[in-house]
C-alpha cells in the first residue's frame, strides 16, 4: 500500500492535483492591504504632522519589506495549496512548512455553498464551503476558485452523491410540506393553568441576585459604601431600637411577613419568567418533523426533523418529581438555534411524555430493564474525596477556632457522605432494545436515552485513581450533546462499549442523517 501513496514532499504537482485560482493570491494580498491601510494611514498622518520627513525614508523601506514578505507568504501558500476531486473524495493539501491533508468523502458532504465577499467578487472569485456533519468549525473550504469552476465542483459533488437517496428525499419533502402543514397533529400544549403550576415550581430568588447587582452598581457609581461598617451599624442601631420597641409578638409577626414576602417575590419571579418563555407552548408533529412554538414577547418557531433527534433527555427536580412533573428535551444536530438540546415538553406527566418519546423513535424506560449501578469502589472514592476535604478543613478550625466550631466541618463531612451515598442509588444505566439509558441525580434527576446506532464513537477513560481501583468513565460520542456514564467497573465499561460498537457497525452515518 505504501507504494501507491504519493510522496510527501511535493515539489511538482502530482497528476490530478489542481491549484486554486491564481488570482486568489492577489485577493489575499489586497485583503491584507486593506487590513493594513488603517495603521498605514495613521502612521503616515503622524509622520507628516511631525514634519519629520527624514523618518519616512527609514519607514518606507520597512513597510515595503513587510508588504513584500506578506505577498511572498501569500504566494507560497497559494503554491502549496492543492486540491483533488477524486473518485470518492475531495482532498485538500496545504501548508508551507507544516503539511496538512484533509480528505472528505463525497458521502459525507451535506451541502456545498458558494460564498462571495466583496473583494473576491471584484475579481470574479468564489469561496467554496463543504458542509459535513462535523459541526461548523472543522469544515473544508477552498478559497478562491473562479465562479465557473466553483459551480462545476458543486455540480460534481452533487452528482457523485446522487446514489444517496436519503438526503435527496429531504428536499422533496420540503417542497411538499407547505400544504401538509395543516394536518399537523398537536402532541403537547400548555394551557394557562398548567403554566401557572409550572411557574410556581420555577420558584426563584434570582431577583435578589439582580438586586445585589444593582446594589453593587449603586456602590460603584453613586458612592454608597456597601462594605462600610459604620453605615450598617447606624442603620441597625436605628432598626434595633424600633424592633425592640415593638415587643415579642410583633417581632414574630415581622419574621413571618418577611418570609411571606420572600415567597411571594420568588413565586412572582418564577411565574413571570415562565409566562414570558413558555406562553402558548405548542408542540406539533408535522410532515417535516416536530414543530415547537412558544414565547410571549419573542415568539420562536422551531422545526426539528425526526431523524435529527439523536437522544432524548427527561429531567425533573426533587420537589416537582414528587408530583410527577417532568421535562423532556431532544438532543439534536441543532442547526436552527444556539442551544443544542430542545425542550419539547417542559412540564408534563409521564403519560403525556410517552407518546412524544415514541414518535421520536425512542422507547421510554421499561420496567424489566437490567439496570446496573456504578462501581461501589467509585462510590467509596467519591465520598472519601469529598468528605476528606471537609475533614481536612476541620484541622485548622480545631486548632484556631473555639472548640464548638469543629462540629461545623464534621457535620458537613457527614452530610456530604450521606447525600452522596443516597445519590448513588439513583445513578444507574441499562441497555435495552437498541438503546442505552443512563440516569443520575438526586436534586435534579435526569434520564438520558440514546439509540446506540446513532452514536459516533466510544471512549473508555481512566484517571490515576480509577486505574488502580478498576473502574472507568464511558464517554459516548453524541452529535449535539454529551453522553457520559461515570464510575462503572472496567468490565462493564467494556461490555457497554462492545454493545454500542456492534450496534454502530450495522449502519453507516449517511443512512442516519
Amino acid at each position, binding site marked *: 500500500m505504501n507504494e501507491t*501513496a504519493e510522496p510527501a514532499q511535493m515539489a511538482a504537482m502530482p497528476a490530478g492535483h489542481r491549484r486554486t485560482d491564481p488570482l486568489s493570491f492577489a485577493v489575499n494580498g489586497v485583503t491584507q492591504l486593506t487590513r493594513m491601510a488603517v495603521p498605514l494611514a495613521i502612521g503616515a498622518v503622524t509622520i507628516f504632522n511631525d514634519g519629520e520627513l527624514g523618518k519616512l525614508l527609514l519607514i518606507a523601506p520597512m513597510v515595503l519589506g513587510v508588504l513584500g514578505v506578506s505577498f511572498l507568504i501569500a504566494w507560497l501558500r497559494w503554491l502549496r495549496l492543492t486540491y483533488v476531486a477524486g473518485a470518492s473524495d475531495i482532498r485538500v493539501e496545504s501548508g508551507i512548512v507544516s503539511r496538512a491533508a*484533509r*480528505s472528505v468523502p463525497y458521502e459525507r458532504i451535506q451541502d456545498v455553498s458558494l460564498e462571495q465577499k466583496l473583494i473576491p467578487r471584484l475579481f470574479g472569485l468564489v469561496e467554496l464551503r463543504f458542509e459535513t456533519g462535523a*459541526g461548523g468549525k472543522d469544515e473544508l473550504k477552498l478559497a478562491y476558485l473562479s465562479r465557473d469552476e466553483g459551480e462545476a465542483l458543486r455540480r460534481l459533488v452533487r452528482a457523485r452523491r446522487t446514489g444517496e437517496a436519503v438526503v435527496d428525499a429531504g428536499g422533496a419533502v420540503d417542497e411538499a410540506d407547505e400544504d401538509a402543514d395543516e394536518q399537523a397533529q398537536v402532541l403537547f400544549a400548555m394551557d394557562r393553568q398548567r403554566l401557572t403550576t409550572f411557574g410556581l415550581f420555577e420558584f426563584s430568588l434570582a431577583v435578589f441576585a439582580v438586586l445585589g447587582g444593582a446594589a453593587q452598581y449603586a456602590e460603584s457609581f453613586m458612592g454608597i459604601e456597601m462594605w462600610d461598617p459604620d453605615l450598617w451599624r447606624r442603620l441597625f442601631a436605628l432598626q434595633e431600637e424600633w424592633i425592640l420597641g415593638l415587643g415579642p409578638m410583633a417581632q414574630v409577626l415581622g419574621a413571618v411577613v418577611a418570609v411571606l414576602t420572600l415567597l411571594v417575590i420568588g413565586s412572582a419571579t418564577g411565574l413571570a419568567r415562565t409566562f414570558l418563555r413558555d406562553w402558548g407552548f405548542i408542540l406539533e408533529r408535522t410532515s417535516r418533523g416536530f414543530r415547537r412554538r412558544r414565547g410571549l414577547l419573542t415568539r420562536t418557531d422551531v422545526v426539528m426533523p425526526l431523524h435529527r433527534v439523536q437522544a432524548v433527555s427527561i429531567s425533573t427536580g426533587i420537589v416537582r418529581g414528587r408530583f410527577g412533573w417532568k421535562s423532556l428535551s431532544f438532543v439534536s444536530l441543532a442547526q436552527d438555534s444556539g442551544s443544542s438540546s430542545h425542550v419539547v415538553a417542559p412540564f408534563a406527566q409521564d403519560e403525556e411524555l410517552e407518546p412524544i418519546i415514541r414518535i421520536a423513535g425512542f422507547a421510554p424506560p421499561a420496567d424489566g430493564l437490567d439496570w446496573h449501578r456504578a462501581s461501589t469502589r467509585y462510590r467509596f472514592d467519591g465520598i472519601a474525596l469529598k468528605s476528606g476535604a471537609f475533614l481536612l478543613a476541620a484541622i485548622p478550625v480545631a486548632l484556631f477556632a473555639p472548640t464548638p466550631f469543629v462540629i461545623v466541618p464534621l457535620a458537613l463531612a457527614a452530610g456530604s457522605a450521606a447525600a452522596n451515598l443516597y445519590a448513588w442509588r439513583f445513578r444507574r444505566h441499562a441497555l435495552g432494545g437498541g438503546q442505552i439509558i443512563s440516569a443520575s441525580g438526586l436534586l435534579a434527576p435526569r434520564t438520558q436515552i440514546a439509540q446506540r446506532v446513532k452514536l459516533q464513537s466510544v471512549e473508555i477513560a481512566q484517571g490515576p485513581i480509577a486505574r488502580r481501583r478498576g473502574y472507568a468513565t464511558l464517554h*459516548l460520542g*453524541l452529535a449535539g450533546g454529551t*453522553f457520559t456514564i461515570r464510575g462503572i467497573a*472496567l468490565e462493564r465499561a467494556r461490555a457497554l462499549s462492545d454493545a454500542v460498537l456492534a450496534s454502530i457497525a450495522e449502519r453507516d452515518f449517511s443512512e442516519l442523517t
Partner: protein
Amino acid sequence: MENDPASGPVGTDDALTSLHPNHVKVLRIKAALAAIPFVIASLVLEGTDRLPPGLVFGPVALLALLAIVRVPLRRHHARGYAMGDDRLRVVRGILLRSDSVVPFGRVQHIDVNQGPLERYYGLAALTVHTAGTHNASVHLPGLEQGLARAMREEIRAHIRRETL
C-alpha cells in the same frame, strides 16, 4: 519499562500496534524546545547571585532532563492503536488513560498532518473527525507517513463501501 502498568491497554485486550520509534525523537525534541526558556530563565536567576548556587538551576535542570528523557518514552509506550475491520482504536495517556474507538462508518473527514519535525523524521499524524460533541476529532500522531496515508485510504474506502 515495557511491563509498566501504565502501558497496559484499558479496553479489550487486543494487541495494540505501537507507534513508530521516531515518534520518541520528535517528542523529545518538542520537550527540549519547551524546556529551553525555563533553563535559560533559571540560568539568568543563577547569574544574579542572590540565591545559593544551584538552588534554582538544579531542580529545573533535573525536571528538564526528566521531561526530555523519561516522559517521552513513557508517553510513547502509553500510546498505541489498533486498526480493525470496521473501526480504529486509539489508546493514549500516562496519567489520564483513554481508549477511544471510532467506527469507520461514523468518520466525517480525515486529516493527515505533518509539522516540520514530523516531516524530517518521515512521520505524520492521522486525525479522524466525527459528528459527536465528545471525541469530535480523534488524533493519532507518530505514524510512518506512508502508513498514515494508507490508513486514510482504507478508512475512506470503507466509508464508500458501506454507503453503496
